[in-house]
């Protein structure tokens, strides 16, 4: 069909996206450089470097995101590897079990950790009953709880693409290595693992981007004691209105997220080819 007709099909959505998505984002980018007295200023960005509270939030965001990402890699890789070894039927079951939590509200999944990790929760009562600890371990309302909750919520984002990439590794390549006398350990580290590294990196970057913008889990499991960038933004918008400052922080987060996304696309393309 002619391009002019096609444009007719596309333009209603395009109009909606421009008005309700692109324009607000551009307005936000502009507001970050807007001085209260009017005119251009970079003071909102200068504030970020000067005020220790911003640097502290940035530090804890990076720390929690990094640890949650590493935990995802350590849990997700063996899980995907194990799924690869299952029969096709069992694989479909396992994939269903990974996908279901992915679609269940993040609130539900975060809430459950209060029950599991609380002072009278399952983990603490079990540890106390086993005589391993006398006092309950404080999992909640600190960075540990937030990290556990985030690792849990994000795991499907790493496992599903990684598992798909592992399925694409040709078994004959591994058989060839075995027929040449390579022991199982060598086959894994010298043949299988290197073939899955791009998918692992892509998944880890995706998880890291999502962690940076996490809002619900830190708000609930951190109980006001763990502040991540999103919770700071919430305060700057809804509690102490400092919209220009919030815009500057959002802009910075957007730039970082898009840069990491570009890296993700690079590795993801290598997986596809």
């Amino acid at each position, binding site marked *: 069909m002619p*391009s002019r007709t*096609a*444009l007719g099909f*596309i333009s209603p*959505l*395009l109009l909606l*996206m421009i008005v*309700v*998505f692109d324009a*607000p984002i551009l*307005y936000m980018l502009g*507001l970050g450089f807007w001085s209260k007295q009017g005119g251009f200023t970079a003071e909102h960005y200068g504030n970020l470097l000067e005020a220790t509270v911003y640097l502290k939030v940035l530090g804890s965001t990076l720390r929690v995101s990094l640890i949650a990402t590493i935990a995802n890699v350590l849990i*997700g890789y*063996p*899980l995907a590897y*194990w799924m690869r070894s299952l029969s096709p039927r069992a*694989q*479909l079951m*396992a*994939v269903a*079990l*990974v*996908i*279901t*939590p*992915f679609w269940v*509200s993040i*609130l539900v999944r975060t*809430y*459950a950790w*209060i029950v*599991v990790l*609380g002072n*009278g929760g*399952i983990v603490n009562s079990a540890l106390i009953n086993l005589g391993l600890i006398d006092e309950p371990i404080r999992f909640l309302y600190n960075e540990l709880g937030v990290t556990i909750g985030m690792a*849990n919520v994000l*795991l499907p984002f790493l496992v599903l*693409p990684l598992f*798909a990439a592992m*399925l694409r590794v040709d*078994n004959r390549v*591994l058989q060839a290595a*075995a027929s040449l006398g390579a*022991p*199982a*350990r060598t086959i894994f580290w010298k043949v299988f693992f290197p073939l899955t590294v791009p998918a692992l990196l892509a998944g880890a970057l995706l998880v890291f981007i999502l962690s940076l*913008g996490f*809002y*619900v889990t830190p*708000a*609930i499991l951190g109980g006001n004691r763990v502040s991540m*960038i*999103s919770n700071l*933004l919430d305060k700057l*918008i809804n509690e102490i209105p400092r919209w220009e400052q919030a815009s500057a922080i959002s802009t910075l*987060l*957007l730039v970082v*997220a*898009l840069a990491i*996304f570009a890296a993700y696309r690079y590795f993801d393309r290598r997986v596809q080819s």
Partner: protein
Amino acid sequence: MIGGNALARRLVAVAGISGLVFLIVPLLIVVPMSFSSARALAFPPPGLSLRWYEAFFGDPRWMSAMATSASVAFVSSLLALLLGGLAAYGLRRAPIRGEGVIEANFVAPLVVPTIIVAVALYLGFAKIGLLGTYVGLVLAHTVLSVPLVIMVLTVAIRGFDVRIEQVAWSLGASRAYTIIKVVLPNLAPNVFAAWIFAFISSFDEVIVTNFIAGTWDTVPKRMFNELILEINPTITAVATLLIAFTMLALAAVAVLLQRTGKLRPTML
């Protein structure tokens, strides 16, 4: 797995199963908790009752949040499906200048961290007077659902042989008639899947809603704000209903896609 001794294989199995348990433990906990007779968050529950379901269905605030959630999800998912479906068709059926940029724009709400979308929409809506309005809520949810619709339908339309449409045209059918009578019936399962995905994504949305909804209360927004204040077991009943609803919707999608042979283990 090639070769490897029994010990290594067992270790991988243990690690894999532990990972899977870690993943689904929240769902396994919440469901029995919702039938607990106790107020305290003890697991396993000391006795069984339906009191938290009664508390949920008997509370007009929860019921009104439910009505808002359902109506916003219904309207926004249909809007996303209609606009997204037309756009996906246009994108796949003709070469357009800047096609890549346009498609990237449609998928962007999924890539940009949601908290940034929330901040931007708050500021933008405050400027044009949509903050705290039903229309603003629906439009925001539509924009957030559009990427899912585009991703599901562009793949489906690409897989649909354009020659079948050409046959219809050559027999004198108009473009609109062809879409309604030829394309839609063939892609019905995919369209339905896209609609379900859009519906769930709107029904579960909490971050943007929390920023822009004003006095409008949706189920996730209400849950979120209750969770921050205090632990109320009514939440477990809401959570269980949400899990059941999500599983039913996903099962419907799986059955439909299986019928068309499009179910893949790698599909989200």
